[in-house]
């Protein structure tokens, strides 16, 4: 059967997340972006929404089961409040969910409960590398087996909360395949950049670069143990997460510019009454809905284990990149000169929008 109706549980979660997104995240977003600092209280409150906890089974300290669809719905809703704040709240998931998806039973027992049962703590993952043709399936960071260890060498960038992280997953190229390795805080040879890296947006999210100079981790720290793990599902869960966040940002920009267009007068009418503006808004709404449904289907396929789920996740993420750029750009355009001024949030959403082509690895559901 087809159905486009979230379950009652999902609706309750969406409602709670939506209130948090508007009352807390959106309220804090402007200053957080300007001052490059998001209050920890806002992050902690977002953590208490329990989105991640609800996707972890009881056996590992959570209170639900992993559902990509639910994760997507929550991510859409939270990013509607603010992208940087959402990424901050979701960061521990970058550590926990890959272990849930690809880890051994021992790894799950050992690593997941301490994160899930506590307050928000900085656990993270390092995937992105500083090269224009960064490809998660052909990483330049390498892992080499050496005795009882793996030795990790390379450079990473865009790693959230790396400086304080209790532990992180570092992805590296092991004999041509991307594999994750659990690296504890303060590992020898792991150098976190002194300064936060600065991007076009996401100022509120502390991001760092990493150098790995022969970082040794025991073989037991390879995600999935000796047999390793399949990177496909992890990447796919990354992609639908990003697409969902893009939908949230786009929806924020669309609604803001729509409401503005209904207030702003020119030539004796509201500008929304001009087809030039009204048609832009109609197309923005249409594109958001199109990508949203595409992403829902990909998420559903991941949940039920359809063969082409990973491909669909890739298509959804690809479509989302163009969609969010188009929508946020038009939102700025509809506000005209005011759209270019940082008092209105649309310019920030436009800066957010351009990042989605680059963010693979910053979120997972």
């Amino acid at each position, binding site marked *: *059967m*087809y*159905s*486009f*109706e*979230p*379950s009652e549980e*999902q609706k309750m979660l969406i409602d709670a997340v939506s209130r948090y997104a508007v009352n807390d995240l959106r309220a804090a977003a402007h200053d957080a972006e300007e001052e490059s600092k998001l209050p920890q209280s806002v992050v902690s409150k977002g953590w208490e929404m329990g989105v991640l906890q609800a996707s972890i089974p009881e056996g590992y300290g959570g209170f639900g089961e992993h559902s990509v*669809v639910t994760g997507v719905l929550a991510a859409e809703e939270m990013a509607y409040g603010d992208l940087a704040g959402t990424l901050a709240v979701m960061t521990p998931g970058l550590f926990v969910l890959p272990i849930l998806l690809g880890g051994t039973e021992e790894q799950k027992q050992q690593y997941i409960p301490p994160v899930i049962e506590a307050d928000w703590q900085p656990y993270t993952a390092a995937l992105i590398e500083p090269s*224009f*043709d*960064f*490809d*998660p*399936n052909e990483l330049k960071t390498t892992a080499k087996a050496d005795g009882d260890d793996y030795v990790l060498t390379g450079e990473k960038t865009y790693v959230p909360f790396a400086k304080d992280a209790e532990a992180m997953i570092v992805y590296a190229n092991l004999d041509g395949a991307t594999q994750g390795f659990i690296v504890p805080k303060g590992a020898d040879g792991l150098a976190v950049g002194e300064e936060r890296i600065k991007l076009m947006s996401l100022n509120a999210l502390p991001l760092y670069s990493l150098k790995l100079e022969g970082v040794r981790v025991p073989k037991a720290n390879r995600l999935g143990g000796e047999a390793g793990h399949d990177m496909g599902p992890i*990447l796919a869960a990354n992609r639908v997460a990003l697409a969902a966040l893009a939908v949230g940002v786009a929806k924020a920009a669309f609604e803001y510019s*729509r409401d503005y*267009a*209904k207030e702003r007068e020119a030539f004796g009418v509201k500008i*929304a*009454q001009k*087809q030039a503006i*009204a*048609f832009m*808004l*109609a*197309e923005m*709404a*249409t594109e958001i*809905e*199109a*990508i949203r*449904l*595409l992403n*829902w*289907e990909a998420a*559903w*396929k991941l949940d*039920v284990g359809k063969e082409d789920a*990973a*491909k*669909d996740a*890739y*298509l*959804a993420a*690809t*479509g989302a*990149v*163009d969609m969010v750029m188009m929508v946020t750009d038009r939102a700025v355009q509809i506000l005209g000169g005011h759209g270019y001024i940082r008092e209105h949030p649309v310019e920030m959403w436009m800066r957010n929008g351009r990042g989605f*082509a680059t963010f*693979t690895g910053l979120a997972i559901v």
Partner: protein
Amino acid sequence: MIEFETPKPIAQQQYVLQTVAENMMRPVSRYFDEHEHEIPWDYINFMHQAMKASGAGSLAPKDEKKEQDPNKPKRPPIGYQLLAHMLEIISWGDVGMYLVTPGGGLGAAAVQAAGSPEQKKKFLARFAGEKPTFAAMCMTEANAGSDTSAIRTTAVLDEKTNEWVLNGEKIFVTAGDKALTEYEQSGKGFIVVWATIDPEAGRAGMRSFVVEAGTPGVKVTKLEHKLGIRCSDTASIVLQDARVPYDHILGSPTVEKTTKGFKGAMATFDATRPLVAATGIGVARAALEEVKKMLAEQGVEIRYGLPRQKLTNVEREVIDMEVMLRSAWLMVIKAVWMADNRKPNALESSMSKVKAGDVVTKITQKAVELMGPLGYTRDTLLEKWFRDAKITDIYEGTGQINRLVVARHILGYRGRDLR
């Protein structure tokens, strides 16, 4: 619970219709494009018999009135969803031929939507008869396209004979010729004519009338030569003192101050727009599949999963086409799912049409471009699909009209706020 599993009855129909599309449509697709106004009777007869045998009778969705076994869990209705899938597949076969599928098309849909139970019985039974039978909807006039309130065809009641007297000229009537001309192979059809019963009343005076084939004063005056969908006849019809019985009016014969009747007519578009979108999507899927097949034959593989920076241009184009096609299709599914579940879907319906109109045009254009000399030649069907697809963004409300509908919905505006 969000779900995207194709319902079993639909999957079964898909399987059957795929065979029809491959064996009865594709082999003659080019022939009927090159021989405009010839009629594919083989296909028509086959579809008529097949639909009769399956009890479908008409492509218009059935009223779901079967007695439900109270002990069985109630299955959600899927009539429109089934229809959307069927139309998508036979349009994948050939959209021009789809448009000559017997069963009444938009004419029957109008009776279904606005007719009384007696009228439905009287006018719709013929589609399950011995011979394939057609009906058509006559709305457009030379000076009234998307602006249907500008319709000038009149219907005047002759109180002496209790007949409506219709005068006017209709254009762009899909299947108008097959509905009115009694071919040896076809049954007696009808057209549904939009006319005003009170020119002063504007939209409030607009009504539709069933005009039977063979009615004196009704004449097909022209068959258009078109860019695409050439297998489908597009007729001009003149009505000159055409008399129809009193009870052939669909809806109330009195003019009220409201435009309720007119809005009711517009509401049928909420059901038909995603279906028309589905036909366009069938064409675009045909084009995209052909491109991928031709590329594969040349050893070009689409490397899904690569970052954009590492893809070739051809790969990027194909991936974008897939994104467009699938997302547009899901919008169609959502719109018909809402219709099946009796959720108001005017917004989603028009949105699906906006999106489909855009993407099927782009996909089929790109398909021709990407295949270069192999795309532009009449040796393959790509150039035909490019011509066929364009109509999706024009009929059943142009892309612009549907943008207007979408815009009014998202802005909470009425017609007078945004025109």
